[in-house]
């Protein structure tokens, strides 16, 4: 595959890995260099290509909160499910969302009892559903970060242009830099560097991460999603750590510019207003949510269809919150693989294709077994 195979070259990958290990060894240190990959897409690629195994023990990779489905708060999900249950409503959303457990069941369960929940690949598909069902309210449940939000903004503007009265959006969109700050401010996990989200940065620009070296003295390498993309970002981070020169390094220059995508940014500014948002595992994070702005209040499903929800309950024993904050790796959760699996997921990190638990479960069971054995032998 053109433009993909070049970034998967095994010989080149082995060279980069050898270089990383050489540089990391030069640093010494009591513990491995610990890097956080913010983005769930990176977690998935790291697991799929087995990079964690190849970089251990010099480098430890810790997954972050970059899975939009996973960080959706139970209360928000409960509201979406209540909305789907409202008579006449068609609720459209992305596939991963329907299987995520809220306080009592999933959107999929709601569909089982008669709610009209539809899976779409794009918000424009939801718009098409609205065109075809003029008598029924169509709500698009929007989840995602800076990457998906512009598409939803565009769909909303299209609905305005066509004067489609029955289309509205329940916006649960979130901004990534505030969550990164929340992790660093909490200080629960010591991190040496951040693998910056590639597609988010394509919209917001690599400059959105300038605060990391400036305020936290921590390097950030914005990365693409192929093995060599990720490895070169890790290589750049290790170098920055060894040299003690934190900076934002853009290793995904074919997709990301420092200033980002101005058109997409304008769309966001036109449609959304920044405000607080609830994140699973974090609670409320100020200035981290994208709600529809005043001008589009008539398309705000939260205002149009007020639904009563009881206080949310988290599944007992589930440590998705700790996984999302990078405090633990998935196998450290007592439910992982024993109770919680993609077939019977307890928490969202096991559901979403971008969830860290699903990635570990799917691709890294050899590592997990080694991990469990070492835990037993040390009595940890």
């Amino acid at each position: 595959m053109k433009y993909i195979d070049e970034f998967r070259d095994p010989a080149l990958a082995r060279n980069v890995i050898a270089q990383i290990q050489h540089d990391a060894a030069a640093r010494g240190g009591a513990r491995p260099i610990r890097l956080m990959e913010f983005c769930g897409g990176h977690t998935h690629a790291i697991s799929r290509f087995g990079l964690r195994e190849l970089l251990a023990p010099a480098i430890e990779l810790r997954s972050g909160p970059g899975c939009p489905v996973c960080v959706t708060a139970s209360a928000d999900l409960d509201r979406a499910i209540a909305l789907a249950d409202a008579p006449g409503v068609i609720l459209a959303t992305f596939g991963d969302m329907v299987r995520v457990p809220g306080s009592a069941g999933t959107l999929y369960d709601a569909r089982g009892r008669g709610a009209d929940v539809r899976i779409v690949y794009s918000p424009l598909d939801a718009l098409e559903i609205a065109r075809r069902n003029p008598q029924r309210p169509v709500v698009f449940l929007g989840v995602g970060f800076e990457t998906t939000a512009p598409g939803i903004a565009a769909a909303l503007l299209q609905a305005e242009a066509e004067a489609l009265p029955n289309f509205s959006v329940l916006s649960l969109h979130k901004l990534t830099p505030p969550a990164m700050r929340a992790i660093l401010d909490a200080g629960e996990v010591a991190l040496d560097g951040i693998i910056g989200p590639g597609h988010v940065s394509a919209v917001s620009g690599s400059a959105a991460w300038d605060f990391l070296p400036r305020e936290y003295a921590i390097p950030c390498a914005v990365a693409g999603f192929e093995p060599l993309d990720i490895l070169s970002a890790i290589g750049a981070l290790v170098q920055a750590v060894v040299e003690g020169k934190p900076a934002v390094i853009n290793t995904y220059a074919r997709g990301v510019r420092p200033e980002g995508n101005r058109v997409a940014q304008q769309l966001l500014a036109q449609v959304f207003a920044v405000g607080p948002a609830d994140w699973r595992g974090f609670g409320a994070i100020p200035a981290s949510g994208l709600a529809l702005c005043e001008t589009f209040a008539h398309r705000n499903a939260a205002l149009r269809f007020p639904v009563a929800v009881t206080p949310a309950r988290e599944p007992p024993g589930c440590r998705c919150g700790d996984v999302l904050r990078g405090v633990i790796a998935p196998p450290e959760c007592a439910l992982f693989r024993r109770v919680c699996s993609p077939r019977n997921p307890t928490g969202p990190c096991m559901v979403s294709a971008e969830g860290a638990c699903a990635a570990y479960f799917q691709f890294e069971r050899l590592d997990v077994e080694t991990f469990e054995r070492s835990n037993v032998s040390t009595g940890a």
Partner: protein
Amino acid sequence: MEEQILLAHGSGGVLTHELIRDVFVRHFSNPWLDDLGDAAVLAALPPGRLALTTDSYVVQPLFFPGGDIGKLAVCGTVNDLAVAGARPLYLTAGFILEEGLPLETLTRVVVSMAETARAAGVAIVTGDTKVVEHGAADGLFINTAGVGIVPPGVALGPARLQPGDALLINGPVGDHGLAVMLQREGLRFQSTLQSDVAPLHGLIAALLDAVPGQVRCLRDATRGGLASVLNEWVSQIGIEIEEAAIPVREEVRAACEFLGLDPLYVANEGKVVVAVAAEAVDAALSVLRAHPLGRDAARIGRVTSEHAGRVVLRTPYGARRIIPMLTGAPLPRIC
């Protein structure tokens, strides 16, 4: 004749008889079917053990690049017999038709079944038709059952797998599942990809003849793809496969990347996984490659005594990962 299927076509009356005569008997024609008895009474079978299988087909769309539900219904059952080591002889065909199905659609499917069966050297000797109300089925469902004979001396099965055995496949994986999926609405992809649906009994007979007693186990990698077949084999032993050795077409890899699928889990309808004794690998590969359905045959891995119960994939980077059983993927109906 009516232009579309009516409930009366399933009533057993005049329309049923017309349908049987003008569509099924006309195209499937053979001495057993033409009798129109309640059961096909077959001549004494050749020596060996009797193999019997059944499968239902609900693919959507009914017609897809490289095949259709009729061709699939014949090949699927022929292949189920062939991987048991059997020579396929006779098939049955049961149809569930949705009221309103254009007769022309049914005829095209039946003609395709007849051509496929003829080419495969099997006879469709008995059948059944039911019609359900509009909305109670999706156009057309087919069930086929098949009878074959496993010749004396042939014995295959996962219990015969031994550490050191080589694993082969007769060509690239994922063609069928992707070809069908890309036809479905909502995925506006342009592609020249064709389903690999084909009867494999000729290829398998040639293989069994070429390396007698050396083939341990065969399985057609249909639903769940190559990964699922291998997982069905690993109760007593372990399996290791090389990612770089598994043939996957460029288009399939690209579409899988785009859709977030793993080609190892995508369905095939003309691919057989072969476990063969290590000393017979070269002979087995050359006989597979000499057959039109095995030109791209490849050696993809081996049976091992390590990690029993697990399929492990070695990536081109030298990392290893477990290939688990498929856990409920939201895939459309593809077979």
